[in-house]
């Protein structure tokens, strides 16, 4: 009818594959990381410049020296979850992020025999290969792969474990990447991810905004949009994982000055890669940001804190052996019966 005619007039370049009844022009132009679970395949929205992120990761590989305390704590925390599972995962994939820390701190957890290290940057993968000889207690065989998290080059039903330690928050299509991880997993396979949450670097966000307002009279995004904790659960269910689990950890790292924070971010490959970023950072603005950061958030001894909120997500691929919620109406005992049995003096 009228709606049908309107749809046919949309430009062919959009290449939509979706249920047309629900689609309106607004949802095409909707530029955000919104993950409303309405089952529609949204067109590819580019928030992050993946090529630039590639270069950032190359630089992070060149700057990699020794171990990073923050990345180590996050990786250790993530790998702890492997100890909570009784089974062994023979084949595992490590997606981007701090794969080096994951491999080094594995220490036999999870019974991994074959570990595939994947990163979008060739230099990073080369560096990981070089560092392999430093592993003294490696009980597994490592394979290296250069690939993009958004186009996972792994066969379906082939992995038992997918780990991503701080790698997925730079994907343009996080639900899509998670869906591909689920497809790559065997039934009863585990997906473990740590991503940065919305509270991360809130001090830097504030300092940048205030400095830009004061120096330039306007603001531009300097920090990427990050997932909120409440979205993490939706992400897991939308990707189709069973038994989803989410928890949050907040790390506060102290730096000698705001510039140390910037250097640390560069070393981790976490610098700004938004398409909408302002390509120019005037020296005045940078100076103002550092001074404001120091005065607004600096401690007595001159150090500045930076918050890193990490959201840990766990999800399993469906398998008949997993417990499922019982069907509605299948209860055989009512709360009234229980109360009668234990007496109303308990009052609970």
């Amino acid at each position, binding site marked *: 009818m009228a709606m049908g005619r309107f749809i046919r007039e949309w430009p062919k370049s959009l290449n939509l594959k979706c249920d047309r009844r629900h689609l309106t022009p607004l949802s095409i132009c909707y530029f955000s990381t919104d993950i409303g679970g309405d089952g529609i395949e949204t067109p590819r929205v580019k928030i992050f410049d993946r090529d630039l992120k590639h*270069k950032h990761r*190359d*630089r992070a*590989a*060149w700057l990699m020296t020794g171990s990073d305390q923050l990345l180590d704590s996050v990786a250790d925390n993530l790998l702890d979850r492997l100890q909570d599972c009784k089974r062994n995962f023979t084949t595992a994939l490590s997606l981007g992020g701090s794969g080096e820390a994951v491999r080094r701190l594995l220490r036999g957890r999870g019974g991994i025999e074959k570990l595939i290290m994947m990163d979008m940057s060739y*230099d990073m993968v*080369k560096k990981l290969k070089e560092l392999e000889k430093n592993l003294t207690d490696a009980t597994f065989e490592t394979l290296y792969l250069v690939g993009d998290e958004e186009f996972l080059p792994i066969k379906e039903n082939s992995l038992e474990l997918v780990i991503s330690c701080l790698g997925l928050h730079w994907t343009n299509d996080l639900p899509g990447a998670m869906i591909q991880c689920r497809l790559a997993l065997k039934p009863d396979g585990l997906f473990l991810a740590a991503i940065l949450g919305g509270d991360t670097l809130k001090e830097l966000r504030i300092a940048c905004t*205030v*400095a830009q*307002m*004061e*120096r*330039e*009279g306007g603001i531009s995004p300097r920090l990427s949009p990050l997932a909120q904790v409440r979205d993490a659960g939706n992400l897991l269910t939308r990707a189709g994982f069973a038994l989803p689990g989410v928890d949050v950890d907040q790390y506060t790292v102290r730096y000698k*000055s705001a*510039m140390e924070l*910037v*250097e640390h971010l560069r070393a981790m490959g976490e610098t700004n890669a938004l398409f909408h970023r302002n390509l120019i*950072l005037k*020296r*005045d603005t*940078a*100076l*103002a940001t*550092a*001074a*404001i950061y*120091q*005065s*607004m958030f600096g401690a007595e001894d001159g150090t500045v804190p930076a918050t890193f909120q990490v959201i840990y997500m766990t999800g399993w691929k469906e398998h008949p052996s997993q417990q499922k919620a019982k069907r509605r109406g299948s209860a055989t005992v009512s709360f009234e019966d229980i109360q009668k049995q234990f007496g109303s003096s308990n009052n609970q």
Partner: protein
Amino acid sequence: MKERKTVSIVKRVLINCASQAQEYGKCVAEKVPEVGHDTCLKEFLALKTCMQNSKQSLNLNKKFTIKCCS
């Protein structure tokens, strides 16, 4: 990848001109959240002149590049 020297310059300015930076920071921190364009211009100009005075020691004109993996 060409690495601009902003980080090391700003670091050194903050050390050499610590008092001006502190004044500027204090001025802005007091005015938050009603900070507009050039709200603390005076303090910032003091900081900028201090930076330009110590230009000699900062070598602002030199650029350098990060050498890539070989």
